[in-house]
């Protein structure tokens, strides 16, 4: 217990988060290196594209495992919308993009709907990435049409996940100052909680 | 086809009349009856050919009926002989549909037009029969009737090349000839004079060039080449030192193993051959090998012959044969000449050195012969002359076998200065000792020339340039003759008997494809087969077939062992109990061996399927290519091709393993079920044919359970050549 601080995450949660985050980041960059020849330098940094592919493949395993824990831990909190409040939040983009009067903003719980969407995209599409990645890693014996669509899904995954991933990164750092400690120390300021997750704050302060 | 050509008058009439013996009158004593020609001796199984002759007038010139109407003339006799072979009969005997037969007849018969050409390219499919030579003979008759011999795009072409069969035949690999197709001496021909007398053909016809009247020039030049300085007129140029072949006896590979089986052969040098796989009735061969005291093999790989002593069913402890395997090298590891079907002799260069201890054939032969000569020189012996008098100086400066030196000796040279002066013309031709003889017309019977093979005289020009190395690509004829590419025997002629491509006045029958043409006072085009003017010149003109005593092509061919006209006979083993046309089912002149291994099962329910054999493209003969991983990968193991119908009857699936057996032996292989094989009807009976390659054996690839296809085949062959009947015999097939 710290004064003026609120415990937002457990140590295990942070571990899973960072496993997921770092593996996702690695996957994005190594994946991009394989998709865009202009990013070959990433391969060079790893001592060649062969190493890069190995890193990508095994990072994928780490990502998959982390994803399973993440889903297990967060699906209830971050995977379920509560309507109509969440809908209202979404319709005003959480107040991030234009000015929204305070009274029109629904009270945000532990996770705002933006975070929930992010979680769902990562969770659901992460599974698809793992499955399609498996087929790409071990294509022997599968029909070519199936494999080709796996490549398609995998590429689509990047197109979807990276923007979400980046928005998450932005908002968790400079976009919403005070957020990052939730995943470092686990403690956030009450002020931050009140600003960003007032409903959750109320719940824990009951 | 002969009947079809005659019935539909498709012959090239002028050609047939003037360039063949179709107009000759056959002896009235000659006959053909119930599958036999006149003169057959039932006891010896041989023909007395006395009646197989054509008539000559009192001057010794053949009697001819140029109208081809005389019932005794060859043409009418031919017509009568083939009368029996109607479309229905041929279709029934061969199993080929009438439509297909007619398609071929029509297409080929059309080449009888004077300006059309047809060629026949054959290989072992035609020769591996007890009627093998007659198959070729039959086609020769067709080619003469259609005027297809001696013309561009015509002829009968044995497909020879890669194994250098043409070259080795030219240089006497067969037992019955000396190099250049000179005959083997026999004990009945005790002197050179007797020998030359017998084989120098005679003709009283002034129009016949009768080229073999020059025979003594070639035989004496050959002796000079073999014995060099020691060949003198006093010693008959060493004729008596030549080995003699018993009169009337044959020494083919089948005869060799038949005698070897009786234990009468002490030693055997098996050079670049794999007889335990290649020779028919391999069980007989493998048993015969065990009777040897010693055997020397020369090959580039171990093979089933060299290792017969550890083969299937053989206990090495029971084999007393001492075996040697000398490592030889293939053609690319040595230089020398190679001849193809067109008698084109090309010089081939060495591409790589032989590996390890391997040596070229020449080097191995030199080393063995050196030892033998040293032994004879030291110990004497029963007959040392042939060995010690042999000209034996084919080494280069490094002491290695010198193929060029050897080739020069084969080509020929002057053994002394020969100066020919022509007082009338005022010319003087000077030929110095040691210079190469530029062609066989210059060879002499007095010992002034030497030539190991008269046909090769000219392969080096007089200045010693190796013409086999020429690579000129100019071809003014546009026919693909390429006269400046290498050298073709005889005399660099690309088409032999080429004067037959022109009419009696020397004008080409096909003006669009001029092989030769008489222009002014000389022939233009290919190297003319003799420089004489066309036949219209009654004084100096000659018939075109100059190697024949009569100067014409033999529609009637008394040289054959089993008759001057070809006749259908069934194979020694077949599905039919009797001949469809006569009471002689098989070739009457065939030699049957009498050993315990020589068994036949004709029309036997135990062996109901016709089997034929062939080679896979990927493998060389008995398959030393099995040691080459890429080729083995492409064709890994023995197989038998079976029709879907037969596979259905036998309950066989494609790729299943089967046992194939004949009355002589058995082997295993993979069943290849294919649409390509189809059952056919012969004499109303459904016949199933199967086919096997002969490239496999027990030694390699490692772990193979299969063995040689020739365990199945009979040791019987064509009585002219003793080429075995690999192409038709009877087998049974069961699941392995």
């Amino acid at each position, binding site marked *: 217990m710290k004064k003026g601080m*609120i415990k937002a995450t457990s140590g295990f949660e942070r571990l899973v988060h960072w496993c997921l985050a770092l593996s996702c980041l690695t996957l994005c960059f190594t994946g991009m290196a394989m998709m865009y020849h202009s990013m070959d330098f990433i391969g060079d940094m790893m001592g060649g594209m062969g190493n890069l592919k190995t890193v990508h493949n095994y990072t994928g395993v780490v990502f998959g495992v982390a994803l399973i824990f993440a889903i297990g831990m967060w699906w209830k909190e971050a995977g379920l919308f509560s309507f109509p409040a969440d809908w209202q939040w979404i319709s005003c983009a959480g107040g991030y993009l234009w000015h929204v009067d305070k009274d029109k903003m629904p009270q945000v719980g532990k996770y705002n709907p933006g975070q929930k969407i992010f979680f769902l995209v990562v969770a659901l599409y992460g599974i698809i990435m793992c499955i399609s990645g498996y087929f790409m890693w071990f294509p022997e014996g599968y029909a070519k049409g199936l494999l080709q669509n796996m490549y398609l899904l995998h590429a689509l995954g990047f197109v979807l996940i990276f923007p979400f991933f980046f928005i998450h990164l932005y908002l968790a750092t400079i976009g919403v*100052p005070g957020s990052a400690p939730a995943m470092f120390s686990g403690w956030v300021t009450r002020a931050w909680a009140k600003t960003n997750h007032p409903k959750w704050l109320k719940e824990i302060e009951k | 086809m002969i009947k079809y050509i005659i019935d539909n008058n498709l012959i090239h009439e002028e050609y047939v009349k003037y360039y063949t013996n179709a107009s000759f009158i056959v002896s009235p004593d000659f006959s053909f009856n119930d599958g036999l020609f006149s003169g057959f001796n039932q006891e010896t199984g041989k023909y007395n050919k006395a009646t197989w002759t054509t008539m000559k007038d009192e001057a010794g010139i053949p009697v001819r009926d140029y109208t081809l109407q005389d019932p005794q003339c060859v043409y009418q006799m031919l017509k009568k002989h083939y009368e029996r072979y109607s479309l229905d009969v041929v279709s029934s005997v061969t199993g080929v549909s009438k439509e297909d037969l007619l398609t071929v007849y029509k297409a080929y018969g059309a080449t009888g037009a004077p300006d059309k050409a047809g060629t026949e390219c054959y290989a072992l499919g035609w020769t591996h029969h007890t009627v093998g030579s007659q198959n070729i003979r039959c086609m020769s008759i067709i080619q003469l009737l259609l005027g297809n011999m001696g013309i561009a795009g015509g002829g009968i072409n044995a497909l020879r090349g890669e194994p250098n069969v043409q070259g080795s035949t030219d240089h006497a690999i067969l037992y019955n000839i000396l190099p250049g197709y000179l005959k083997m001496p026999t004990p009945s021909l005790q002197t050179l004079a007797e020998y030359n007398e017998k084989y120098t053909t005679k003709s009283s016809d002034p129009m016949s060039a009768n080229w073999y009247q020059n025979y003594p020039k070639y035989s004496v030049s050959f002796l000079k080449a073999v014995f060099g300085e020691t060949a003198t007129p006093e010693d008959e140029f060493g004729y008596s030192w030549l080995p003699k072949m018993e009169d009337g006896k044959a020494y083919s590979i089948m005869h060799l193993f038949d005698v070897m089986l009786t234990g009468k052969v002490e030693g055997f040098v098996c050079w670049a051959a794999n007889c335990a796989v290649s020779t028919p009735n391999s069980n007989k061969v493998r048993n015969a090998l065990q009777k040897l005291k010693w055997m020397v093999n020369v090959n580039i790989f171990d093979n089933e012959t060299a290792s017969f002593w550890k083969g299937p069913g053989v206990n090495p402890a029971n084999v007393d044969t001492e075996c040697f395997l000398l490592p030889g090298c293939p053609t690319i590891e040595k230089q020398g000449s190679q001849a193809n079907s067109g008698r084109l002799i090309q010089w081939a260069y060495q591409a790589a050195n032989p590996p390890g201890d391997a040596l070229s054939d020449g080097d191995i032969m030199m080393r063995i012969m050196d030892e033998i000569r040293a032994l004879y020189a030291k110990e004497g012996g029963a007959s040392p002359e042939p060995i010690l008098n042999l000209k034996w100086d084919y080494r280069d400066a490094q002491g290695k076998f010198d193929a060029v030196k050897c080739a020069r000796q084969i080509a020929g040279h002057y053994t002394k200065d020969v100066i020919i002066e022509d007082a009338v013309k005022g010319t003087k031709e000077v030929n110095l000792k040691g210079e190469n003889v530029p062609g066989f017309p210059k060879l002499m019977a007095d010992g002034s020339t030497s030539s190991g093979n008269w046909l090769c005289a000219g392969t080096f020009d007089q200045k010693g340039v190796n013409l086999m190395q020429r690579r000129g690509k100019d071809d003014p004829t546009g026919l693909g003759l390429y006269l400046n590419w290498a050298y073709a025997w005889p005399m660099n002629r690309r088409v032999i008997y080429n004067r037959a491509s022109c009419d009696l006045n020397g004008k080409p029958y096909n003006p669009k494809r001029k092989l030769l043409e008489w222009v002014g006072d000389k022939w233009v085009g290919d190297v003319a087969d003799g420089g004489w003017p066309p036949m219209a010149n009654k004084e100096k003109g000659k018939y075109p077939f100059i190697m024949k005593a009569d100067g014409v092509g033999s529609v009637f061919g008394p040289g054959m062992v089993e008759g001057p006209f070809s006749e259908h006979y069934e194979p020694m083993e077949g599905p039919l109990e009797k001949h469809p046309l006569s009471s002689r089912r098989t070739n009457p002149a065939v030699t049957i061996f009498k050993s315990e291994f020589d068994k036949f099962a004709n029309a036997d329910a135990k062996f109901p399927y016709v089997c034929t054999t062939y080679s896979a493209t990927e493998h060389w003969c008995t398959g030393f290519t099995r040691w080459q991983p890429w080729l083995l990968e492409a064709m890994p193991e023995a*197989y038998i091709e079976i029709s879907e119908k037969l596979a259905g009857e036998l309950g066989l699936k494609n790729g299943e393993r089967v046992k194939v057996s004949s009355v002589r032996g058995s082997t295993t292989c993979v069943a290849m079920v294919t649409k390509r094989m189809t059952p056919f009807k012969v004499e109303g009976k459904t016949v199933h044919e199967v086919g096997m390659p002969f490239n496999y054996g027990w030694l390699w690839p490692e772990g193979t359970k299969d063995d040689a296809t020739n365990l199945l085949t009979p040791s019987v062959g064509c009585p002219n050549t003793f080429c075995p009947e690999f192409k038709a015999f009877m087998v049974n097939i069961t699941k392995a």
Partner: protein
Amino acid sequence: MKGLELVKLIDLSRCTACRGCQIACKQWNNLPASKTNNFGSYQNPPDLQWNTWTLIRFQEIEGQNNKVKWLFRKDGCMHCTDAACIKVCPTQALYHTEFGSVAVDYDRCIGCKACITACPFDVPRYDSVTNKIYKCDLCYSRLKANQPPACVQSCPTGALQIGAKDEMIAKAYKRAQELGDGATVYGDKYVDGTHVIYVLPQKAAVYEKLPDRPEVPAPILVWKDVLKPLGLIATGGVIGAAIVHYVTHGPKAPIEDNSNDQGGAV
């Protein structure tokens, strides 16, 4: 041949299935043999392999009047202009040479097998020992030395030829016309033209393992022509948007907490 866009013409009407090309290919490219069995066919190895870049396929069909036809087809890389393998290769190991052929840079290949999935002709093969894919490169080393590919060099019947693209295509059409009877030219109309062109005595559909209308597979097109640029746009877009957002909106700082401090009870 230097400086030309080349096409290898395979005139199947002249092919005798001697397989000289198959062996010559192995010889020039130093490809080892595999252990095989006769599986009831002359065809062997049974399929293209990492060490078998060209293969004669044997096929029996029943034509008119129940006459059996034995079809031979030399299979191998078609060297597409619009090459799916090059499109999908993550490392540019597959590339077009100056002759228009598709070669492999084995130093770059990472054995990802994407090309195997993408190839409409099912050509590239993977070797697990070296972890690379292998296929015909039209004997790039020989072409550079102004020599025909090993297969062409070995062909005894003239079934294989190589030459300038236009010349070969013209030759192919002339030959197909000569043959008549349903003979077709295959290759020039697909994937922007292949650099291997067949004269087929039968319709393309008759031949086993020869796609009737080969094309770069649709999923590959969507991936490479839509998603790949879209990925860049999305990536760039979101980064740009974040910057704009930060600049225009600024950080969303916590509002100073002036409510009752309850001591951070959790």
